[in-house]
């Protein structure tokens, strides 16, 4: 193959696709990025066997023809280290030579034919979801998915597409975050699947760049495809049954008490309390009383802390304890200035909400 491309553009697209390829893999070709050059366009593809990403660079400055599969990590470092504005990549016998100005690299590639073929979007079954709204849903939910492996479905985020609504839900079994948006999806009945975190994170990354208005989503049998104008992410779905989240959403009687709390003040207070919340088992106590909220923690041999803040609360005095990380991660994911907290007693679930469409359920720590 031969390729001539502006360096900046090449680097930008390589940076987008390279995080997909794994460092250690039994299939060497997974470490590679597939490059497909044609006049005015360069297509880059990486895959780890579960998730694939395609990024398309379109630019008059691109010229050349052909395909190559080169190790993504090394190619990226090489491109970063070259300084000229334009780079040339050319196959020379067993090597690919990457040249920029007076410097050059010789890189070993794989046969591009062994690179797995990645399917592309078939417009028919695709749902277009407004991009900003969808990214907001991602930010509000992803943190609540299980990070360690366990029950499989917990390691992903549930996506539900209904005729007029798109919902994301994530849980790790101890807390659950749900966010939904209203949009005309064009589907006639509910479709759902469980998205792996890595694929979603990759989408966040790619989508925050371009100036697309929508993300196109297509759910396939065991895969999901996200398409933006210059990028596509194809990801395997998480197998398994997602828990019945509707069963744990708040009902009036489950949480009769309600407080309005300033978000950033709460976030700061929780952060302070976390300092003395202990190391192995961490808990902070929220003590509600008429008009005020006290946040405290203590750990033997470590110390204790206490902060008080005014809140809108009329109910009886209740103390309830939570893992400070669970509250902190949630508050950080929000841009709203106030949150509503609804609860019942020290042993039952608490519910944070910023609107009807964004709810966070969290289980307390008891002793």
């Amino acid at each position, binding site marked *: 193959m031969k390729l001539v491309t502006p360096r900046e553009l090449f680097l930008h697209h390589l940076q987008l696709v390279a995080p997909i390829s*794994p460092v250690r893999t039994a*299939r060497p070709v997974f470490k590679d990025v597939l490059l497909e050059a044609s006049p005015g366009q360069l297509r880059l593809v990486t895959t780890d066997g579960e998730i694939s990403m395609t990024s398309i660079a379109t630019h008059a400055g691109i010229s050349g023809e052909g395909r190559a599969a080169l190790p993504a990590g090394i190619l990226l470092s090489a491109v*970063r280290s070259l300084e000229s504005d334009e780079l040339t990549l050319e196959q020379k016998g067993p090597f690919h030579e990457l040249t920029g100005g007076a410097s050059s690299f010789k890189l070993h590639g794989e046969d591009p034919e062994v690179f797995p073929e990645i399917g592309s979007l078939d417009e028919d079954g695709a749902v277009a979801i407004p991009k900003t709204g969808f990214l907001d849903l991602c930010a509000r939910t992803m943190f609540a998915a299980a990070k*360690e492996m366990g029950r499989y479905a917990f390691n992903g985020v549930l996506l539900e597409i209904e005729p007029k609504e798109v919902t994301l839900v994530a849980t790790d079994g*101890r807390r659950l975050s749900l966010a939904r948006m209203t949009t005309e999806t064009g589907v006639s009945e509910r479709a759902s699947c469980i998205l792996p975190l*890595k694929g979603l994170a990759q989408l966040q990354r790619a989508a925050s760049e371009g100036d697309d208005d929508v993300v196109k989503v297509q759910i396939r049998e065991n895969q999901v495809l996200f398409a933006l104008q210059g990028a596509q992410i194809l990801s395997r779905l998480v197998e398994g049954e997602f828990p019945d989240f509707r069963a*744990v959403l708040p009902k009036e009687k489950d949480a009769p008490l309600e407080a309005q709390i300033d978000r950033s003040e709460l976030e700061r207070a929780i952060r302070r309390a976390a300092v003395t919340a202990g190391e192995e088992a961490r808990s902070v106590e929220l003590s509600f009383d008429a008009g005020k909220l006290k946040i405290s923690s203590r750990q033997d041999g470590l110390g204790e802390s206490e902060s008080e803040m005014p809140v809108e609360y009329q109910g009886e005095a209740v103390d309830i304890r939570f*893992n400070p990380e669970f509250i902190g991660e949630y508050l950080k994911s929000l841009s709203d200035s106030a949150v509503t907290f609804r609860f019942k007693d020290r042993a039952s679930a608490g519910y944070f909400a910023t609107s009807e469409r964004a709810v966070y359920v969290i289980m307390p720590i*008891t002793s």
Partner: protein
Amino acid sequence: MIRALPRDVVDRIAAGEVVERPASVVKELIENALDARARRISVSVGEGGLGLIRVADDGTGIAEADLGLAFAAHATSKLADVGDLEHIGSFGFRGEALASIGAVSRARITTSIGTEAGGWTLACEAGVLLGPEPVATTRGTVVEIRDLFFNTPARRRFLGAARTEAARCREAVTSLALVHAGVCFDLEVDGHKRFRVDGGADLRERLAAVYGEDFVRDMVPLAGQHEGISVEGWLTLPAAAKPRPRAQHCFVNDRHVKDRALVAAVRSGCADFLPGSLQPAFVIQIHLDPARVDVNVHPTKAEVRFRERDEVFRAVRRACRDALLAANLSPRPRAEGIAARSMSPGWEAGPGPALAATGSPSSRTLPFRVESKPFTDRADRVGEALPPAVPAPAPAPVRRYLQVHDTYLVHEDPAGLVLIDQHALHERILYARLQDDLAAGRLESQRLLLPETVRLDPSDHARALGMQEELAALGLVVESFGPDTVAIHAVPAVLQHESVPDLLRALLDPPDAHGGIPNGLDRRLFTMACHAAVKAGDPLGEDEIASMLRQGEALDHDATCPHGRPTRLVIPPDELEKLFKRSGF
């Protein structure tokens, strides 16, 4: 034809007790059915096997002329002379099983070799024969053993509760059912169907039938040939390995054997992929020329002797290693390192998600922040785009502590040079804290939003429910959820990153790791501390070490623990001087 074995053969057969417990009877009877080339084997067990064990097969049956010798000692149809002992191809060869069983029970064989010959039934009560009498029956054999050990009450006393013995019987059936593709097995316990595998099922389907689909999903197949030794089977992916494995089965020429060396060979094949504290679950089937393995070394045939041990070891190790090398070890879609970035630095007190995703033992809240070291080999680091700037190197701090091999801590104090086992010390600290918390009624428990259900075998199920209160005191809230399942509603907060089923099993049956702690609440607290503590191999930062030593000093006894290993060794200055032969200078 069943014949009495000649004296010289009898003398060379490994002698000893053939039937120790109901499960050994189950195993012997199934092996007889398999030797009779049965395609279908139905087992039922009542009252833990002490009431009834019934094994029905559709095999060759026993001819009327032979039936009289079936319960005779040292009578077998499977071996003729001493030479045959060199290459045993059948499960049976001693002609001992039925004789031993018949001597301690009320036994009955009903058998037919086909319609023309008709059927015969022969009873044997405490060794005394009754019959045979003709009966109408189809081809095959039904062996019924009632009132096992009725005439040897001393033997009964050594057995566990009926549930435990039933569970052992089940284990005996499942382990044989796993490898005999082509044979349909079913098991009934006290009138309830327990499981069934079809004749057509392969090993993978059999594993799923016995242990559940979830279990098999985490396994990779292995297959290898080495010097005429073939190794096949399934092995858990490192990420799914547990401190206590659910199943480790070795079969040699389809015979289920217990062999530490084979387990060690599997472990050694996994060594590069698996932290030392975790155990892979596996099923390994080894096939080799019967002449190369001696099965006549153990009275219940649970052990075998290989003529070329090292070759077998090598074959197993290599097959496991190759399987893991070929497997896609990058975990299934799940929280990868990327999730780390969606968390603010202020909330990193939990384990690095990258660590958790690799299934390292650190996948629980460490008492400190884990150093970013493990991130260097994360997948998404390859193309890590941002930030390009390397943080300016901070001036190297003066180190007052040293961590060696990520396992030991070294520092000095006036008493001398102090060496500390990080796991032992941390375990000690946590143990003391958990004891205090328990006494003060503030042992914390994280409630679960989605209760987790765990399937248990009947004996564990009963124990879990019997111990509900005790477990709740430890923060584990267990409730019944059907006949063989419990639902967990809350877990001890220190252990909330542990897998719930593992945690439950560990607390039901806390291992007496260090000896001496009575099997009660204390041993369970100790188990919790052990699970939550940093492990050998966990890299620790300077602050973490300092904090741990400080907490250790606050304890009454952190150096010598009443029950276990020392947490620290101190080499006094004069000892050092002696070692360096400095005295006198």
